[in-house]
């Protein structure tokens, strides 16, 4: 039979390899928070003529109105033309926005500018949202552990299953953060409310996955009482492997892939984060959560700092 648990330390290393680089980027650059969480404005303008003004003149315009820290990007709109201007700035109100658009119409000789999107979030609400978001993730995690501990109350060490699910969940959250860290460098990704939605979904589905594997362990532990725990867990993983691959890789990931490829710019980042996050959720139930259960059962940390006689 496939021996997955025997190679558990290899899988732990793979996880670290994925998590560490992105987290390093985040540690150096700081979290790429979007305006939802730190306040500010995004103004997306379409210049139907395609004659985009240069970045400098836009920044100057903002500076004249007293706004610093303005970032200007160009983007490709739905019709394939590079005619979008995306301007990120500190919080501006509607009157200022109108003034800006009017000035641009005159100065850049573009009377047909269209406001495609305008998001503006004040600093107060942004701070509240951030606090609540952290709370929401924490509450979700706690609720899920409690539920798992309750659902597995019949078998020994039910609490361990909850804790392992949480460790694996933190693993998945870190993978998502790492991904965003890497994405922030290459694609200018930011953490916005949609990111938070994706994160919480990953948390929810990640647990769903752990439960399926744990459920099999629960069932098998009543059938094969004599089997060492490691064998039992390995057996359970192999049994649920087909389901994990089919559900996660074939169905959910197909849906998300379709969403990422065809779902338009707005949803792309969201879909990719879910894609990776949910994959990580499946991965971590097999290669993180169950192995940690075994590590815990064997109390392997006692041998970590000794020479391993039997590898």
């Amino acid at each position, binding site marked *: 039979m496939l021996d997955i648990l025997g190679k558990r330390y290899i899988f732990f290393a793979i996880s670290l390899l994925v998590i560490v680089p992105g987290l390093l980027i985040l540690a150096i650059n700081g979290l790429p928070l979007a305006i939802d969480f730190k306040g500010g404005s995004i103004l997306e303008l379409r210049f139907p003529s395609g004659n985009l003004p240069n970045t400098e003149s836009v920044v100057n315009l903002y500076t004249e109105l007293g706004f610093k820290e303005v970032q200007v990007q160009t983007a490709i709109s739905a019709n394939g033309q590079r005619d979008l201007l995306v301007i990120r700035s500190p919080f501006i109100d509607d009157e200022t926005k109108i003034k800006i658009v009017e000035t641009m119409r005159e100065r850049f000789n573009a009377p047909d500018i269209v406001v495609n999107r305008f998001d503006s979030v*004040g600093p107060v609400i942004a701070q509240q949202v951030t606090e609540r978001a952290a709370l929401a993730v924490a509450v979700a995690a706690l609720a899920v552990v409690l539920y*798992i501990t309750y659902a597995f109350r019949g078998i020994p060490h039910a609490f361990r299953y909850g804790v392992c699910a949480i460790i694996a969940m933190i693993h998945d959250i870190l993978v998502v953060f790492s991904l965003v860290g890497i994405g922030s460098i290459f694609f200018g990704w930011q953490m916005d409310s949609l990111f938070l939605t994706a994160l919480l979904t990953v948390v929810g589905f990640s647990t769903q996955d752990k439960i399926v594997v744990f459920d099999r362990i629960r069932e098998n532990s009543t059938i094969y009482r004599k089997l060492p725990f490691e064998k039992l867990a390995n057996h359970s993983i192999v049994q649920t492997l087909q389901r994990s691959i089919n559900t996660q890789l074939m169905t*959910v990931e197909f849906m*998300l892939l379709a969403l990422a490829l065809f779902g338009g710019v*707005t949803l792309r980042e969201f879909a990719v984060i879910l894609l990776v996050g949910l994959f990580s959720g499946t991965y971590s139930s097999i290669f993180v959560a169950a192995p940690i259960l075994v590590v815990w059962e064997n109390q392997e940390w006692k041998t970590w700092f000794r020479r391993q006689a039997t590898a």
Partner: protein
Amino acid sequence: MEQRHVNLILIAILLIAAIWIDLPQNPGIKIGNFEKRFETVLGLDLRGGMQVILSVPPEVSVTQQNLQDAAIILENRSNALGVSEVVFQTAGERIIVGEFPGATNAEDVINKIRQVGQLEFVDFGDTPFPEGTVIETDFGITESSTPESPNPESTPTATSTETSTPEATPEASPTPAPIRYHTVLTGRDLKSVGVSRDTLGRYVVDIEFTDEGARIFKEWTTQNVGKYLGIVLDKRVISSPVIREPITEGRAQIEGNFTSESANALAVQLRYGALPIPLNIEQIRVVGPTLGQDSLQKSLLAGVIGFIIVMLFMGIYYRLPGVVANMALLTYAAITFAIFKTIPVTLTLPGIAGFLLSTGSALDANILIFERLKEELRNGRNLRQALDLGWKRAWSSIRDSNISALITSAILFWFGSTFGASFVKGFALTLALGVMVSLFTALVVTRAFLETAVFDLFKDADKKPGWFGL
């Protein structure tokens, strides 16, 4: 008749109802006074529009009633602008969320809703005006040139002291617009407003004036018995009560054909001609109509492509059960969409994503069951036993995993509703509804379909392991 046949009939009825609701041109139901329309409600990100989040400054204390009243007043003001389907909702303790579908020109809307509602009691003389008439008053104009005390000589024509339009008399022009009517009192002179019932049980609005207001009111009513005293908000007539007798004790009652609701609505307007609480604009989101259209088309396309791939996979990998699961999946989609239209759930981009994800969850349940089914068949059970065991054994993991998904959705929903993050709310709602429907389809629909297929349609299925992917 066996259980599966009963279930099959029930599913058929449910499915027909769902498909009927799903029809794009659904006429809705109308029985007597009960009317229900089934419409697909698209969120601002899909149809274009503006969302504004207003919040009460932290130093101001606020009650839930204040916030509700403010939302009602804002909604009334915006509706008066002619922007359709404007919705103002309270979110949490200090936030009001306004949504303006189709509006991209935020300046008008925001200026109008921000304006301070000015309540005036206006001398109408002998002519009552219908509700909604726009008039001009001398309030704010006379302040600089004439003393603020009311003019006891008010004439029925109520021409103001410094009117510059000599032809402006009620007789000369039927439209009241050019005439300036005299303002007797303003909202500042009110102390309290309430609703009660008179001895006949009719609803009346009670007003109590401040001391200064009471004095002016007493003087005016003594001299104007039988005349009309208009109640005007932002130059728009709310009601034109007649003065029956001099009112001396600083209290007045407005009678009219009020219902409980209309009396309370008037009281709210009187009490808070201006908004009861100061509000700051905290967040503005504008989505242009073309961007919304584009997102809608693309995500629908993505959904259709995803569905086709997944159904192909299920059919090829799981064979007969896979095909059956696909039929159950279509049933699931029809029912879920019907529920979205019935509630109605506002569909946003994340909402569509939530729906697609719950489709994954629906398939997960089927896959769990089919994997079990295959295992049991491999272990040599016959088809009937394997079917029973497949569902029985898969149940505990389906239950636990779905409950954890529901827990997460509930927390997301809570997060979304306290902050007016309506898209997070939309995602959580569609996900939760999808998960619940998927439980039903996996446990009841797939099973009824599969049993009918192997026991009624293809009775020799037991001898064809290839049909089950073995």
